[in-house]
């Protein structure tokens, strides 16, 4: 009984004052964080060797000795990391923080790599180290503490650490075949790095980017009655393309006629002005005749009556329609084009009427 009590006392003392075999942040004679990294690597290396020996003796780990070694290593490392983190946060909050904690990201990663590789999984751990190194270099260029971001960063670091810790606690119950000490070391490195400004910044950056994407993906909601148009078939679309070519052709003919008959220069004598006007009329005559024919055929067809009637609701178009009936000479090519385009709109994309219109256009403008 005394022996048992003595054992318990020793255990309690060991757990409450720090594991004597584990890394100590207050390594005698050295107080900077490099001692932490060195001790951590040394401790993890020793734990890994013990773990390997235990597995060599009992490959299936039926006695769960290797698992115990692994879990002890996790507990010890977490305790030291937490202790270090608490000091660090206190320093940040009191604005007395030093940059060397940031550099720990590099050193722990690189140290872990040298301590545990032995030819197995070196790339993964080194990858962590290299990522952290890049982040570390970048972070040194930032003036963290002049910005009013400390609480946000601390919250993010807490969040990072809690996420990794949650994973570790779940895996902690796994047998060694599912969760090796190498994987545990990797998680401890992640846990440590999670409590650094480098990781806080990078994680915040990821979250911000994700939120930006989510915002982009946020779709506007509309309410009230809406008219949803049907998707036109390929043949119908083809009809519209052919009508468009006709419309462009007629407009192009007008544009070419105007280009070919420039107005008389300012201040020209009346004879020159008259001649220029006569030339333009002459040049425009072919397209004018086409447009006149097209409109007459539209009116005589009888199929477009409803559309023509609807055009009269617009004052400008009503005037053009009246002029076509009463003073055709005053109707310009531009008037005809305006009317023709408006008429097509008034057909409400009716496929048959658009085909009919296309036929009329192609007959007059082959």
């Amino acid at each position, binding site marked *: 009984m005394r022996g048992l009590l003595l054992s318990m006392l020793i255990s309690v003392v060991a757990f409450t004052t720090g594991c004597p075999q584990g890394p100590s942040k207050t390594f005698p004679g050295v107080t900077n964080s490099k001692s932490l990294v060195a001790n951590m690597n040394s401790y993890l290396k020793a734990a890994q060797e013990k773990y390997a020996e235990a597995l060599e003796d009992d490959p299936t780990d039926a006695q769960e000795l290797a698992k115990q070694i692994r879990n002890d290593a996790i507990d010890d490392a977490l305790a030291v990391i937490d202790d270090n983190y608490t000091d660090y946060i206190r320093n940040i909050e009191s604005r007395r923080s030093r940059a060397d904690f940031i550099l720990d990201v590099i050193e722990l990663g690189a140290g872990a790599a040298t301590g545990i590789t032995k030819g197995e999984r070196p790339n993964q751990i080194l990858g962590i180290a290299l990522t952290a190194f890049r982040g570390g270099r970048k972070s040194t260029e930032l003036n963290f503490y002049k910005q009013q971001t400390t609480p946000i960063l601390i919250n993010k670091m807490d969040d990072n650490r809690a996420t990794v810790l949650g994973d570790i606690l779940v895996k902690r119950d796994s047998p060694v075949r599912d969760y090796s000490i190498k994987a545990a070391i990797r998680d401890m490195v992640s846990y440590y790095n999670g409590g650094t400004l480098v990781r806080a910044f990078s994680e915040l950056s990821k979250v911000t980017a994700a939120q930006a994407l989510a915002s*982009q*993906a946020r*779709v*506007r*909601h*509309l*309410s009230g009655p*809406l*008219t*949803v*148009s049907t*998707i*036109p078939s*390929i043949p*119908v*679309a083809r009809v*519209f*393309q052919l*009508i*468009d*070519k006709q*419309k*462009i*052709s007629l*407009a*192009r003919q*007008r*544009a070419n006629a105007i280009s070919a008959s420039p107005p008389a220069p300012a201040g020209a004598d009346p004879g020159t002005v008259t001649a220029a006007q006569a030339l333009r009329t002459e040049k425009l005559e072919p397209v004018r005749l086409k447009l006149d024919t097209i409109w007459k055929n539209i009116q005589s067809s009888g199929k477009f009556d409803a559309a023509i009637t609807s055009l009269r609701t617009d004052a400008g178009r009503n005037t053009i329609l009246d002029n076509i009936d009463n003073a055709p000479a005053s109707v310009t090519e*531009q008037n005809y*084009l*305006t009317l*023709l*385009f*408006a008429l*097509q*709109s*008034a057909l409400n*994309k009716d496929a048959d009427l658009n085909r009919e219109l296309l036929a009329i256009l192609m007959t007059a403008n082959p």
Partner: protein
Amino acid sequence: MGEQYKSYYPGSATLDETCRACLVEVLDGEPKKLMSVEGVIHDQEEGVEQKLNEATFEKDDDPMAILTMLNDFVFVDVSTPQGASDAAAASKGSTNIGGPGAQFSIWIEGVLTPVQILGKHTE
């Protein structure tokens, strides 16, 4: 600047179908520009939601504007590197609707997808 108006097309349509619908709208009647196409959700009665693509057009009152209006469109799904590459290749000689590099989130068969719209004028 002429009158702007919007048309709505089913979000269940394919990209080609939405492109075709916008093309027909541009070609129909007065000259007009395709300004944008965006996926929206229409909250109907009884809590039913309908995915729609909202296309915005701008009319030009001058019929001669038809000589310069974009009347040939390509909608490119740029959600994949291949799509982005295709858009870059197709962009030569075309105008990117919405400005250089602009993308629109459009429903393609019910899935919101980034799309670049390239247009050109052909006679």
